[in-house]
């Protein structure tokens, strides 16, 4: 073999090992693995809300966990819907809805769970960029022809969030994620009965040293099944037939009562 070709082979080998080393570096970094206790929640006639368990591990994190503190933020976002916020004012002595704002495609459900209060593991700029917490989640409003996110101290936005929180549809739980071992974490997500059907995305971010170093996501679905689903879909898809059947049910009930309680 000629010396030049041997040099070329050596160069190729060096490049290959460098590439391998580069490729191996992300593999050595932390990776998030996560799963949910169930992926489909069925609404039946006695549905009063559901608790799901989110669990997972930080892969390749064993060594780093000793000197790095890990923080997990899990954001559960429900199906998007447009909502109207109405504000009552006293007009001619009676309280009636006077002003309204429309929130466009905002999450029907939003729950943010974390290991610690957000400010203790990331600065405000990082939280804003990563959209951590309700205050940093955009809730766009229709303002004239434009759709923009109002400032966090906008009274309509504040009231919207407050009412959603009272109904347990929005929430922040800053001790909701716990590390069972330095790398194994779990969290409990509570979805109340009022939460609408649809797909719920779970976005999980791993914070270390004030920045996001890994992320993953999961999802679950809330569906109505059986009789409830039949009723709800029939009412919307076949309104007229549904109405006729309901009216007949009323007449039948009335007739049955008159037969059962007949006194002559």
């Amino acid at each position: 073999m000629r010396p030049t070709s041997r040099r070329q082979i050596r160069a190729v080998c060096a490049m290959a090992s460098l590439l391998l080393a580069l490729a191996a570096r992300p593999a050595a970094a932390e990776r998030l693995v996560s799963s949910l206790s169930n992926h489909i929640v069925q609404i039946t006639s006695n549905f009063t809300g559901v608790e799901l368990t989110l669990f997972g591990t930080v892969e390749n994190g064993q060594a780093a966990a000793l000197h790095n503190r890990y923080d997990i933020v899990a954001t559960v976002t429900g199906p998007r819907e447009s909502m109207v916020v109405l504000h009552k004012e006293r007009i001619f002595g009676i309280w009636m809805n006077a002003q309204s704002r429309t929130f466009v495609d905002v999450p029907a459900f939003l729950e943010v769970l974390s290991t610690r209060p957000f400010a203790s593991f990331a600065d405000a700029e990082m939280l804003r960029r990563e959209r951590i917490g309700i205050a940093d989640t955009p809730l766009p409003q229709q303002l004239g022809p434009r759709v923009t996110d109002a400032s966090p101290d906008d009274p309509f936005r504040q009231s919207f969030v407050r009412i959603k929180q009272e109904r347990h549809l929005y929430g922040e739980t800053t001790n909701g994620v716990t590390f069972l071992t330095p790398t194994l974490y779990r969290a409990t997500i509570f979805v109340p009965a009022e939460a609408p059907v649809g797909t719920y995305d779970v976005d999980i971010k791993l914070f270390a040293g004030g920045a996001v170093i890994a992320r993953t996501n999961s999802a679950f679905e809330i569906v109505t099944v059986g009789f409830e689903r039949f009723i709800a879909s029939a009412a919307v898809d076949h309104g007229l037939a549904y109405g006729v059947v309901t009216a007949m049910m009323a007449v039948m009930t009335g007739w049955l009562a008159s037969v059962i309680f007949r006194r002559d």
Partner: protein
Amino acid sequence: MEIYLPIADLPVNVFLLLGMGLAVGFISGMFGIGGGFLMTPLLIFIGISPAVSVATVSTHIAASSFSGAVAYWRRRAIDIALALMLLAGGIVGTVAGVLLFTALRQLGHLDIVISLSYLLLLGSVGAMMVAEGLRAILRARQGKPVELRRPGSHTWIHGLPLKIRFKQSKIYVSAIPVCAIGFIMGFIGAIMGIGGGFLLVPMLIYFLRVPTNVVIGTSMVLTLITMASATILHAATNHLVDAVLALILMVGGVTGAQFGARAGQKMRSERLRLLLGILVLAVGLRFAFDLIVTPNELYTIRTVGEGP
């Protein structure tokens, strides 16, 4: 035991609903009315949206007025011709009411219109009934004979054209006020979720002089058909009728009505009228209270497009 209501979209205790059905049914049986003016506000107060409450109660009233109508039919205490003439106006009124209901809902003013209608209608009718009831009781105390209100045999209503003879009621009146009364009942029934028995019976007696033996049966036929049509129209246009909620309410309602009817027979009629007046007035005042007192929460949120 909580049950999930598919259209109202929230879980409610079944026994609470059955209890409400029984209580309202008892009162409706006692006074010979449908009880919608009590049931709709009760549903609103337990957190069901006014729109779903109004639409669903119409189904409940259809059931209770049917069982009542069957009983009166057996006794031949229904004037079919008069009922049909009332229905001619009643159906048109129901359609108009549901159309206005849909339009108001799209504009976002439905709740305030429902509240104001309850306040104005129940407040004024209730006050009149209480005053009338108190006068009747005072007269009875003073030993005077109970005055049968049958004012002069001819009023302006009897001067109207298109006169028709209703054989069973033994009256000869114009079709215009009959249709008008039917229209009014259908219209307010569709908007407020009431059968309107407490209004319709006095109207038929005072304006048309329908004799008391057929008035309740005939009014129940009108209520049955207008409320059944309101159910179908609300379901077809606004998808607001909750069949599960309606079924629980009507089972409680028709049962309660049987016991109420027995209790009502033991009471003196002027006392019954006074009690009913107080009840009507109280519901009206409750709406006034909610409209006038500063609410705890000035903001409300609702989904755009679908649902209540």
